[in-house]
């Protein structure tokens, strides 16, 4: 509860910060300090220190898992601020408001990961989505940004409608919004319940861009300002994924016979669409949009497996994927040319940055010693342990090999080709942050024990 209220408050504070401060540096420092406070508050809650005493049992329950994920989300946001907050200045004039919106999104994420009531899920998803529509369109003079925002808004509103419809149907079948009180085993054959569940499934798939509900993703990720794409594709996406897992694990578990195969097919489709389309992209930014779809396919493995390993795996995946993606977007926002050719010869001009990008790419491709490998490893392990679905596992690794193709194109461009530099304006501090992310990636890849010992203290 600490984090939910605090992040909401921080959002309000940031809105007023634009009046309080004339220059931009204090705003940024305030936001970063706020995130640190948020992080500390959340960790204190995991240790049993509650700032606010409220009875939320009917709609929110913070399990260890949810709290741990929240820590990851806040820490990820902190990393995101450290890498990209300077670049946010270039988007538009409303610097403080961007931070405010991001804090609101965090509130939404905390709600989505801990809901026990379908209405809270709905509210959480909306709190995440509406600021995202604004952030997508925040480059007001840029036509592509406007187009992306409109597209995102129309499609998002539609999917939210479907979600609400699904919740209504489930209410009709069970007579309650609380997932603990739904007696699903008795209602196995209810068409109303199955229909509602499928609608929820589809609308959640839309939010995490699982094929065939992914069509908005490339355009929105491409059109939105780089810095916000970075946030949208990482923290927000994995946050909704944790909610997705929570919804189907704790609410719809009794119906798993009905949806397991759906999940497997959706995962397979997402892997195929994401990876194969990514191969043909010429722009690294668009490639990353498709790669985020394909990574969503791997995260869907958690929903197919639905066991302990899947839960751990999703945490690892959110760490690995978010760190690498935030890092690479941090680099892209400093490039004037987003195409693969724009990366030509980067190793000559910026050896350190090129090394960092290499590690991000290796992690995304799932090469051992990186967090990305371990994340994929856990996902495969979860599905194999669950039994069945070997075809999905084999398809998964074949698609991982395809993904190596487009991730390595970036490495090839940087190291084995020559070209003029399209990269400028990185400060020494940001370089240190990039190196820090690399260290985190390798450390997680080598000693995942440390991370999990926090989960099971």
């Amino acid at each position: 509860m600490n984090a939910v209220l605090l992040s909401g408050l921080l959002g309000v504070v940031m809105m007023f910060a634009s009046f309080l401060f004339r220059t931009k540096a204090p705003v940024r420092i305030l936001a970063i300090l706020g995130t640190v406070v948020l992080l500390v508050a959340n960790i204190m809650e995991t240790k049993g220190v509650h700032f606010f005493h409220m009875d939320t049992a009917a709609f929110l329950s913070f399990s260890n898992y949810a709290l741990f994920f929240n820590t990851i989300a806040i820490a990820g946001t902190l990393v995101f601020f450290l890498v990209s907050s300077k670049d946010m200045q270039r988007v538009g004039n409303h610097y403080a408001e961007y931070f405010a919106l991001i804090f609101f999104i965090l509130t939404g994420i905390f709600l989505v990961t801990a809901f026990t009531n379908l209405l809270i899920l709905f509210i959480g998803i909306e709190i995440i989505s509406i600021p995202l529509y604004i952030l997508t369109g925040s480059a007001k003079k840029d036509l592509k940004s406007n187009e992306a925002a409109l597209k995102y808004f129309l499609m998002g509103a539609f999917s939210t409608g479907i979600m609400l419809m699904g919740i209504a149907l489930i209410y009709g079948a069970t007579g309650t919004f609380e997932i603990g009180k739904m007696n699903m085993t008795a209602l196995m054959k209810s068409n109303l319940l199955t229909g509602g569940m499928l609608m929820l499934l589809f609308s959640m798939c839309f939010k995490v861009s699982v094929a065939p509900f992914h069509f908005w993703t490339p355009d929105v990720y491409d059109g939105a300002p780089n810095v916000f794409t970075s946030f949208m594709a990482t923290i927000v996406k994995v946050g909704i994924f944790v909610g997705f897992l929570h919804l189907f694990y704790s609410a719809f578990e009794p119906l798993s016979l009905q949806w397991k195969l759906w999940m497997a097919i959706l995962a397979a489709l997402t892997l195929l669409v994401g990876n194969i389309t990514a191969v043909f992209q010429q722009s690294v930014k668009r490639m990353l949009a498709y790669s985020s779809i394909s990574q969503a396919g791997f995260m869907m493995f958690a929903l197919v497996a639905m066991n302990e390993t899947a839960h751990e795996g999703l945490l690892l995946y959110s760490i690995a994927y978010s760190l690498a993606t935030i890092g690479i977007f941090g680099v892209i926002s400093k490039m004037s040319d987003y195409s693969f050719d724009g990366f030509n010869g980067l190793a000559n001009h910026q050896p350190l940055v090129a090394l960092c990008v290499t590690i991000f790419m290796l992690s995304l491709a799932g090469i051992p010693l990186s967090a990305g490998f371990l994340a994929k490893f856990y996902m495969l392990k979860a599905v194999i342990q669950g039994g069945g679905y070997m075809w999905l596992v084999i398809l998964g690794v074949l698609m991982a090999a395809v993904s190596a193709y487009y991730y390595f194109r970036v490495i090839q461009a940087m190291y084995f080709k020559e070209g003029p530099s399209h990269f400028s304006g990185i400060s020494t501090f940001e370089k240190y942050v990039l190196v820090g992310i690399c260290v985190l990636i390798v450390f997680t890849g080598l000693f995942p024990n440390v991370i999990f010992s926090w989960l099971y203290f």
Partner: protein
Amino acid sequence: MIALLLILVPLVSGLATFLIKKEEQVRTWSLLAAIITFIIAILGVAVYTAPGGWTFRAEWMGLLNSSFSLKGDGMGIMLCMLTALAYPVIFLSTWTTAYRKVHNFFGLMLLTQAGLMGVFLAMDALLFYFFWELALIPIYFICSQWGGERRIAVTFKFFIYTFIGSLLMLVGILYIYSRTPGHSFDISAFYQAGLSAKEQSWLFWLFFVAFAVKMPVFPFHTWQPDAYQQSPTAATMVLSALMVKMGVLGLLRWLLPVFPIAAYMNGDTISLLAVTGIIYASLIAMRQDDMKRLVAYSSIAHIGLMCAAVFAEDKSAMEGTMIQMFSHGINILGMWIVVEIIERKFGTVKISALGGIAQKAPALTFFFVIIAFANIALPLTNAFIGEFLMFKGILGSKVSQNGVLIMATAGLGIILGAVYTLRMGRKVFFGETNALTEKGTDIVFHEKAILAIIVGAILIVGIYPQPFLNTFDQISQSILKNSDVLPMLMKQKH
């Protein structure tokens, strides 16, 4: 301790190499590191023969029941020895080759060495997989950055092939892990996984593809000639002399004992594929005009024979394979050194453009002839021992139905091998000199010394192989015991 040092020394010195700026220092430093590794390996073989010397075990990834477990069995020690011996030779023989950003080159070379040592010593499936991939990444960078004209595409093909193979193997590893009693990645747990014949029949192929790509066995070989031709010679040496052994070791250590029933059932199919590959590669080698491609195809032929011998599941075939792994490493290293010297002297490796080198470079010719003899397995050379034992084993195999057919086809391959090797020797070294070879000079002292080491190794193993065979005795017996399929088939029937 020895096992750990063999990985740590190249790893740490490799990482340190990236920081050195001066070219001379880089070369000296990395040569020194390679020599130190070699000395450690020799000490390990000669002095610390106590069983504890080659084992190391530490906690790692406790949650997954995977440990950092290393152990040198007869085969592993031999391959580590080969790796440790090969590296100083590779560094010395390419001493004068110029590289852009030389510190990166040598750093990556040493990292590859660490990965190779890890693969040869790992006794934990997850650790094995880690090293398996780690050996690949640095060599990928080396070949793509310092290779020939078409290096990027060619190396990438090699990378994708091996990556697909190893990912499939990862699925297999995970599946067996979920079947082991008490969920463990330890190799002994894998041996006792007790997989049913049906499970084995498909898991087998997941592993086999990974190893077959690496060796490479026909029809998974298409990456290899291009990669050997386009890579810088030092990297080609590593690829052909050391990296292919990862595949053979995989077959012996991970495939046969873990999937005995599937190996029994598919053995003949694979052996027939392998010997088809021998004939196919030999025929192509006969038509090659490029010396590098010729050596590459000849390597496919040699590896094919090893693959067929592995699936004979016979003690002498097994020992033959192991000794041949060492010999093939030495011989192909010698071949590449000669090719490299010729390329450096005359600027071409086209057989049709060369001729009559013997008149100008008698010492080089002398060494070449011995290496060529070893390549075609003449008696008194190292390859003769290995190939003889392998043939004996294939013929006496208890599990193979087509032993005679396999042996006859492979034997034809040996004859073809003599044809193309000697043809190359005749056209390049003998006959009349032409305008290009007219100005040739003989090799200098340090080149003679390196080639003398190679030739010395060829002759020692060829004349007195017994110490080697003694080392392999125990490990080949234990592989055979673990992969003995008859009691298992009996059990399945009841």
